[in-house]
């Protein structure tokens, strides 16, 4: 007899009282345990990992044969056709998942179906947009060795190059004048299968292709301060950012580009149930003596490690994610369904906004896989991503204070983030105002020949990328009355226009200037991911 798996418990809002143990704050490649003031603090916990689909390959095949709003995939495949499979790049999922990656599963099945149909013109492309090229190791991890060895040596599996004038085409303009740019091979294909892994509700839908397969000319129309100020990024129904992507999707459709979208969701089993990291996924009052011991041991161990070794330990962590859904077919219908599955895992209702939002920032953002979380990425992780993990309204009231915890070292990956270094050294000392930055520096960074060269031939993010990261935080910077980073490098924190604090208590003390002496506090206990439904 098979044992029934226990039903995972949903997320919750904990009211902090005097018996609440110290709460875990992620802090880069380390952690802090912080006592939040009793009586006026709440902690938003994610739900436990949903039970994954037991036979993912079967579910994928099933979905491809029974898509939403489209004919079954095999009916779209025929000999002599041009098929292009596009997949999400290294920025998803976070952290990278253990092998086999979902992308590998889907691509292998799609290739099987294509082979059955006699399709022999297949390209497999990493949808980088302006992200860095994936290395061979990373590509192998995402698509599997079998696919890589079959396609890469003959040049049929590759990173897209948004700066190759011969490889990119302009598809036209939206009704509002946004240009649409796309990888030429995708446009010329009879079918584009987009293979997605959805981590947060911002991704997927038309953003996959309208942004993912575009270059600077298309992306600049939504990656800008004015658009982002009008966007609730994790809620595509209330986001100018998504409106613009969707409008670009209309142009893609109208241009006759046939997209077969495959969206998947994963549970939030980031740290697993085994090993020292598993404690990070438990609620503090439920820590056993063994959990406490292993947490302490981990803390001590990390403290004595040199920076680089510590970074390697974390960067080598692969998440045992389980796939919770797969849906394929027409872009928008697929996306809506995927978002529903995502919300099932992530959404937790909380009543009312707080004066202060606290967040512990971990070591990883979408842009530093196998890399370094530099100060600008720290900002973006906190203000661009975590702050936006809400529906309806932000967790913190307008004019409230955001307190983030991260060491924020002045460290940069020289290969991945060259233009970030210059942004930090040249732009931020001049101004931190998004509009001014856009006006004065965007063209220069976007069109810089050296950055372009590094993006195309090395493994660098596009020159304009750090500016986009900065824009990503505009909404939060505009919303908050003050932003404090606890335990951060003072120079870096100040240069970004934030206030440094040594301890959480200091930060709360500093915050009292803005929100008074008895503020209400919400702590976003993230990761694993949790999204607030603020009612």
């Amino acid at each position: 007899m098979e044992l029934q798996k226990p039903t995972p418990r949903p997320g919750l809002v904990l009211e902090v009282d005097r018996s609440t143990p110290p709460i875990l704050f992620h802090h880069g490649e380390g952690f802090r345990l912080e006592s939040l003031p009793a009586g006026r603090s709440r902690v938003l916990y994610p739900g436990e990992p949903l039970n994954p689909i037991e036979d993912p390959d079967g579910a994928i095949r099933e979905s491809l044969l029974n898509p939403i709003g489209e004919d079954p995939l095999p009916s779209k495949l025929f000999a002599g056709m041009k098929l292009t499979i596009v997949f999400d790049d290294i920025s998803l999922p976070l952290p990278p998942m253990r092998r086999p990656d979902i992308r590998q599963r889907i691509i292998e099945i799609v290739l099987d179906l294509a082979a059955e149909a006699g399709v022999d013109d297949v390209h497999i492309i990493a949808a980088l947009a302006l992200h860095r090229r994936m290395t061979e190791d990373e590509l192998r991890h995402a698509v599997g060795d079998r696919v890589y060895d079959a396609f890469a040596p003959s040049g049929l599996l590759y990173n897209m190059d948004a700066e190759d004038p011969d490889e990119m085409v302009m598809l036209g303009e939206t009704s509002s004048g946004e240009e649409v740019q796309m990888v030429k091979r995708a446009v010329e294909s009879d079918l584009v299968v987009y293979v997605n892994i959805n981590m947060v509700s911002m991704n997927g839908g038309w953003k996959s292709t309208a942004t993912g397969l575009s270059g600077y000319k298309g992306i600049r129309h939504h990656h800008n301060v004015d658009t982002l100020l009008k966007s609730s990024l994790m809620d595509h129904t209330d986001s100018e950012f998504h409106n613009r992507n969707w409008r670009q999707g209309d142009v893609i459709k109208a241009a006759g580009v046939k997209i077969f979208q495959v969206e998947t969701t994963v549970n939030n089993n980031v740290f697993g149930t085994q090993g020292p990291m598993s404690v990070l996924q438990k609620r503090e009052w439920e820590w056993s003596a063994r959990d406490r011991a292993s947490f302490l041991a981990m803390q001590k161990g990390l403290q004595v490690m040199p920076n680089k070794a510590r970074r390697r330990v974390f960067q080598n962590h692969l998440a045992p994610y389980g796939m919770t859904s797969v849906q394929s077919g027409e872009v928008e219908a697929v996306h809506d369904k995927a978002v529903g599955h995502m919300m099932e895992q992530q959404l937790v209702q909380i009543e009312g906004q707080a004066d202060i939002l606290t967040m512990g920032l971990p070591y990883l953002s979408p842009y530093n896989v196998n890399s370094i979380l530099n100060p600008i990425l720290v900002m973006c992780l906190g203000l661009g991503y975590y702050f936006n993990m809400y529906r309806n309204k932000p967790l913190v009231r307008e004019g409230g204070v955001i307190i983030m915890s991260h060491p924020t070292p002045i460290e940069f990956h020289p290969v991945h983030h060259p233009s970030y270094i210059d942004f930090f050294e040249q732009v931020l000392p001049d101004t931190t105002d998004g509009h001014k930055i856009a006006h004065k520096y965007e063209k220069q960074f976007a069109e810089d020949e050296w950055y372009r060269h590094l993006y195309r031939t090395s493994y660098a993010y596009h020159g304009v990328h750090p500016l986009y990261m900065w824009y990503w935080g505009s909404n939060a910077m505009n919303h908050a009355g003050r932003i404090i980073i606890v335990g951060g490098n003072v120079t870096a924190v100040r240069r970004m226009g934030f206030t440094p604090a040594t301890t959480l208590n200091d930060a709360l003390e500093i915050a009292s200037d803005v929100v008074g002496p008895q503020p209400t506090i919400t702590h976003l206990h993230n990761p694993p991911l949790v999204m607030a439904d603020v009612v």
Partner: protein
Amino acid sequence: MIAESLAGKRIAITGTTGFLGTALVERLLRSVPDCTLVLLIRPGRRGAPARLQREILKNDAFDRLRNSLSDDTFDSMCQRRILAIAADITKPGLDLDDEGRAALADCDVFIHSAASVSFDNPLDVAINTNLVGPVNLVETLHDLNATPHLIAVSTAYVAGTRKGRAAEELLQAGAYAVPIDWRNEIETARRARLHAEDRSRTTKSSDDYRAEAKRELGAAGTTALAIKSEQLRDRGVRKEMVDLGLSRAHALGFSDSYAMTKAMAESAMVELRGDVPLSIVRPSIIESSWAEPFPGWIRGFRMAEPVIIGFGRGLLKDFPGSPEGVLDTIPVDLVVATLIGVAAAGPSDADEVEVFQSASGAVNPFRMAQFHAWTTEFFRNNPIYDEYDQPIAPPRWTFPSADKVTRQLYRARSGLEKADGVMRVLPVRGKRAALAADIDERRENLDKAIGYVDLYGKYVVCEAEYQCDNVLALHASLPPEDQASFQMDPRVIDWRTYAYDIHLPSVLTAGRGIKTAPSGRRGGGRAERLRGQVLAPERPLAAFDLENTLIASNVVGSWGWLATRNLNRGQRARLVLKALTEAVGLQRLDRRDRVAFLRHFYRRYDNASVEQLEHDAGELFSDLLVKNSFPEAIRRVRDHRAAGHRTVLITGALDFIVKNLEPLFDDIIAPSLEQVDGRYTGRMLTAPPIGEMRAEALRQYALEHDLNLQEAVAYADSTSDLPLLEAVAFPVAVNPDTKLAVVARRRGWLVENFEPAPGGEHKILPVAPYLPRARRSA
């Protein structure tokens, strides 16, 4: 009476571009309206009239006169009253042309004030100017049949280092006369110079100078080393002659060669003068003026100034002497008044040589303790600021014996020399190498301090008391209005006022580069300024070295990376071990001759597949070059491009390795390897641009593109790049090794310390990331 007695007189003067001479010309023009002047000026490159305009009449001494007249009147008066003639007193006949001879023949008075006043001149130079000069002068007068009243400016220190009264009398007449054959001294000094020059060119000396040049500069290339060893040789000869002058002077009882040669000149003139009437004026230490043309007027850096500034800067921690020792100082205007007074009075009726000592010590002594107290007070109230904008506290002097001070200084210097020796062989760069420059700077400062103590210390401990009765009598003989106007009586000086209110402020104003107020700038003010110059739009070209200038890696690193790229673990380990065992030998070869090193090293590429290396060079670009690049350096290259400058990379690294850097540069000058059947042979097609070849490559490049190197910028990291750095007007030393750090500091070059990106991974061994077997190429 003075103005009247000199009215209509024609006065010839030498040494008018000097301190005393300028003051004399000014005073005569202003206060003796009806005399005319014939100035004997060494023509130099510009000619005597131009030097008169630029170096004499432009001086602020003439401001007073200029302001009392209009500019035009001043100019026309000068035109009317001054005749500048080209003359060189060290040459027989003074090198006069006919016009000059005619002008000189007509003169009524001849004031000879030209001298080489430096205390540390080489013996032959001092003799030539101070002794041969007056001899030539007297002989020329005889030759012209002219008998003007010759007034020779000498020095009170001709009395030597003895103690007690020094009267206003001829040396020969005094009780302490030392018989010296001045003709013989001229001859032996000439011979000594010849011998010294010879000795500096023996095989051993040449080898020694070359070795020293090498020690200082390293593998800087033949030309740079040749220039350096010649410089060292020249300096060696000079030092020998200076030392010779000092020891000869000491042997004859003088403090230095200046006083000695002046004393001999007096004897020579007395002996040779024939019917030329002669008066001798002996000033003590001439310093800034008491009242005329304005209080505190000074020209150039005088004797006491370096000591005063050294004190203010805290450089001279102590000074020999005794608190009651007398600093025999005399303001320049008192000396000028004495000279004019003597000229107006005319030669003695008895055809005797009259001596006037313009000195203060006997009648109004200025004591060392006073000097120290007032100077200390002055610098407490008006401190000099150091490079960090901190005021420097003046040191407290204890007046120990000269020996003790010198011993301390020498001990400190020998310590620094040892430290310097160690630093120069240490393989450190950038900020740590700046320590070597600090040590060098401190050693130089110590050398200066030692120099001051050596030379000036003797004047301070000199306890001779220079009598000035003749000057006082001359002054007393003047009518009251002249007495007031031509003040020559040292008793008029209030030393406190003179030191605190007049002299010290004027020294601070006259001394260049002295910070008398905090600059108020944060961070490197000077470096910022230099950076601005380097990036100025008018620069046509910026040349860059690669290794340690733009990236922290070298040819060995890139070879190691490529060589290990396709090896299994065992092979990698063997290769690394082998490379490590060869490292010492390679480094030695590299230090001795970099071109030979590269030739030898590049043999390793023999039989390597061109296609494979080109393919691997793509990954190498990211994993080695970009990863180890200095972001600030890359930014600088791009700043140059943004400023519209042409950028060129000149490197000894192979072309296929640096190919991916192309977007940064307009051109890359790098060696290529010969290819046969798709494989490299390990031989270079052209000599690599290293050392002088690097400068040559740049010159050639500039020529081809019509660029002016006099406006260009170059970045490099080691002394082997000296020829490249010296080829441009704006050299930048990047992360310099110790030798280059010292050179850069001395020459005031911009020094940049570029660092790899903070947080980047830096491998100890330059090996490629490990590839599983399936992914390796054969």
